[in-house]
């Protein structure tokens, strides 16, 4: 975790993302407020939060898929907050994505080989070299070589997610934004895909911005964790601390809300949670009384 010595790979400073409102002259909807994060080389930053907390938007802003209203996103020292499509094309060598839903993130009409060759073709790699690289990639994510000529629908969810990971790896990027990549998968498949993410990081030294709603997943895969709530980061720090002994009341609630697979320990956790909710309610009331 001594990655902070070198200059970070990605820094996000005071990022604000606003979506224009559909209604005439209405105030725009503010999805992200004053976000500050950084990711070092070979490091995983876990981003945890509930639906609507803005965690996905942050990932999309880094990828250039969400409008940056204010603040700055720096990747390898370059400001990419408002990168043009051409700059993005260069950037895509180093910055890639794995989406949540393995069913809609692959074009159902294209063969796996074509899907994987797409990013290679954009970078101008010639066909034979691309073909060779596609074979390597399939091998790397543990898919059979004959997958090249098959369509996405012939694969299970876990296998499709492997294809999506292979596509992200195609150009040997430095950072992969993973937007809930295991949320749609079965438990045992999720475990295998997480193993794959860890293995790839060990082998290639890639960094991850790992977005998930599941604190257990984030704890398992991240070096550092940032907790998002209502479009803001409420807590950020080493994974071990944030996910075991959090400071912010929201993170505390989040931690105690996820059930553990043992009846007696879960009963304990349930009691802890009720106690926590009680004390937090108490604090709020006191604060209210003071004000």
């Amino acid at each position, binding site marked *: 975790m001594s990655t902070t010595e070198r200059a970070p790979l990605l820094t996000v400073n005071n990022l604000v993302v606003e979506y224009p409102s559909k209604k005439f002259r209405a105030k725009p909807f503010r999805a992200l407020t004053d976000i500050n994060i950084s990711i070092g080389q070979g490091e995983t930053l876990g981003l945890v939060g509930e639906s609507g907390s803005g965690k996905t938007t942050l990932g999309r802003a880094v990828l250039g898929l969400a409008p940056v209203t204010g603040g700055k996103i720096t990747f390898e020292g370059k400001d990419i907050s408002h990168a043009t499509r051409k700059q993005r094309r260069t950037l*895509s060598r180093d*910055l890639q994505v794995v989406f949540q839903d393995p069913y*809609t993130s692959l074009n159902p009409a294209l063969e796996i080989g074509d899907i994987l060759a797409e990013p290679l073709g*954009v970078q101008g790699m010639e066909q034979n070299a691309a073909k060779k690289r596609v074979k390597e990639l399939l091998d790397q994510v543990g*898919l059979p070589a004959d997958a090249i000529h098959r369509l996405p629908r012939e694969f299970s969810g876990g296998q499709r997610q492997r294809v999506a990971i292979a596509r992200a790896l195609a150009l040997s990027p430095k950072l992969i934004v993973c937007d809930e990549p295991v949320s749609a998968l079965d*438990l045992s498949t999720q475990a295998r895909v997480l193993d794959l993410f860890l293995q790839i990081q060990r082998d290639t030294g890639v960094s991850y911005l790992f977005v998930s709603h599941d604190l257990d997943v984030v704890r398992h895969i991240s070096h550092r964790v940032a907790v998002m709530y209502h479009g803001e980061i409420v807590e950020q720090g080493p994974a071990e601390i944030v996910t075991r002994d959090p400071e912010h009341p929201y993170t505390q609630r*989040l931690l105690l809300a*996820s059930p553990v697979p043992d*009846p007696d320990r879960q009963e304990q956790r349930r009691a802890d949670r009720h106690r926590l909710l009680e004390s937090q309610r108490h604090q709020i009331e006191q604060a209210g009384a003071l004000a």
Partner: protein
Amino acid sequence: MSDSVETAAVTAVPAPVPPGPSGTVVRSTVMRRLLRNPMGIASLVILGSIALLAVFAPVLAPFEENFANITKTLAPADSVNILGTDSAGRDTWSRLLFGAQLTLLSALLCAGVAIAIGLPAGLIAGYYAGKFEAVSNWVVSILMSLPGLIVLLTIRAAFGPSVWISMIAFGVLISPSYFRLTRTAVQSVRNELYVDAARVSGLSDWSIIARHIFSVVRAPIIIQTAAIAGVAIAIQSGLEFLGLGDPTKATWGVMLSEGFKNVYLTPVLLLWPALAMALTIGGLVLLGNAIRDALEDGEKIKHRKKRGTTSAMGAGPTAAPATARPSRKSVAAVDAGTEHHLVKVTNLGVGYPQADGSIKKVVDDVSFHVDRGEILGIVGESGSGKSQTAFSILGLLPDNARIVGGAIQFDGNYTVAPGDERVNQARLSKLRGKRISYIPQEPMSNLDPAFTIGYQLVTPMVRVLGISKEEARRRALKLLTDVGIASPERTFSAYPHEVSGGMAQRVLIAGAISCEPDLVIADEPTTALDVTVQADVLDLLRELQQRLNIGIILVTHNFGVVADLCDRVAVMQNGRLVEEGSVRDILRNPKERYTRTLLASMLEGKTPMSMLVSSQKEPVA
């Protein structure tokens, strides 16, 4: 015994290659299906031969289209003029052939113009939206509000009787249909994740449209073109029939007009062009339908075909205990000594008939029971048959599902008696909603957006409990308070979209307990909810279960939820019951390998950044 087959299917090990076709063959299935469809073949043969006749018209036609033999007008068919001649002594057969050429070409021109305008405009408007879309929508609305025939008449008056000009004009007039079709198709995929992925890869917009978006509109465009070409032929012929065509050119419309003028002298002149038009237009319509059928899943046809064979199968190898049969009196009495169970499922098998006449079992030989005041968790991964089991207790299986074995009894009576092929809906409909209720996975899609929450709570109570509306309203408000909703009055009069997901799930739970059921079946009741909301809903379920002493079957994939609520657990895999026991036994000392694999996949208590399942194997890379 349950070697984790599913495990193999998702790992690095190449899954048993689906017997289905490989990639290249897949694409040609549309063509193959088209050719297997009699309608498709017939239309292709008709259109093909008409097109061939048109192409080889100069060779096949014995005369020039306007060659007139004035000595032989309105002649009947003979060896020289095989279809006879018209009032100017022109050969009908030759004119029919040249007419096919001109008619088909002009129809193609019309469709071509319409596509050339509508398709790109639709692609751009659908993909970029914004101002271009707004403007083109205006233009389209104007075009569509123009009375087509009058515009065509005006154009004819201004530019003379050219087939080509009128067809170009008609192409422009009809282009909105392509525009709308394309725009809608594009809008539906514009925000798909694979388009986002392509953007991240740095693909230019044009490449994205060409590679990822155009493929979506291709099929509808082909179907639409078949229809439009038919319309174009009809419109063009209609104009010419009115005498507004180019008299120097032979087209079917001109011939029709000619035939009509001589309808008393030689009515057969009317027949040939009419027949040609009918065949062509009919062929185009049939072709469009056949392509649509080929693109749609062939499942329905299979299903219809299968009906007969199924009934023979279902009665077959019923694993139902032979003891049940002798004791069957009028309806069927359950086995002695099992009446006290609230629900008892015995050797249940559920299957779906397949195209080849076999039955695919999704639930196989599953037995368990639930008593009053007890929570049974059914755990498994997708495809394990856990939801199918729950639905067969509720009697909510899809129409084509068959009970292929076993029995289900509720409170001492069979709802599925041994040997039954379907759930007994007569008996279940009396229980469902009243004594057995259901909490679904997706709270939002299980509330009707058109009615207030209050209405959706009150109606079932009035119907099932036979109480007055006033009384039901009072009970609904009490229920909403019971499920922990702070302002029941406001929620009562709210519409589903006005409440959050967690709130909607509370409403559904209130609905589930509103008629004081004995058994609640909850299918992944917290999966769609945030973790903190999930914890609240679990608390609520526990509290209600204890207070009302109901039995709950909780279908879930989450062992944490199981640990939180359940007394007993049944683990399912590939339609079979792998293991059943008390929650502590299963979670702490699982006997079956599959259960152990599942529990090992839990992240809780694992060393962060350690391999979860692949450590024992060599690294994947």
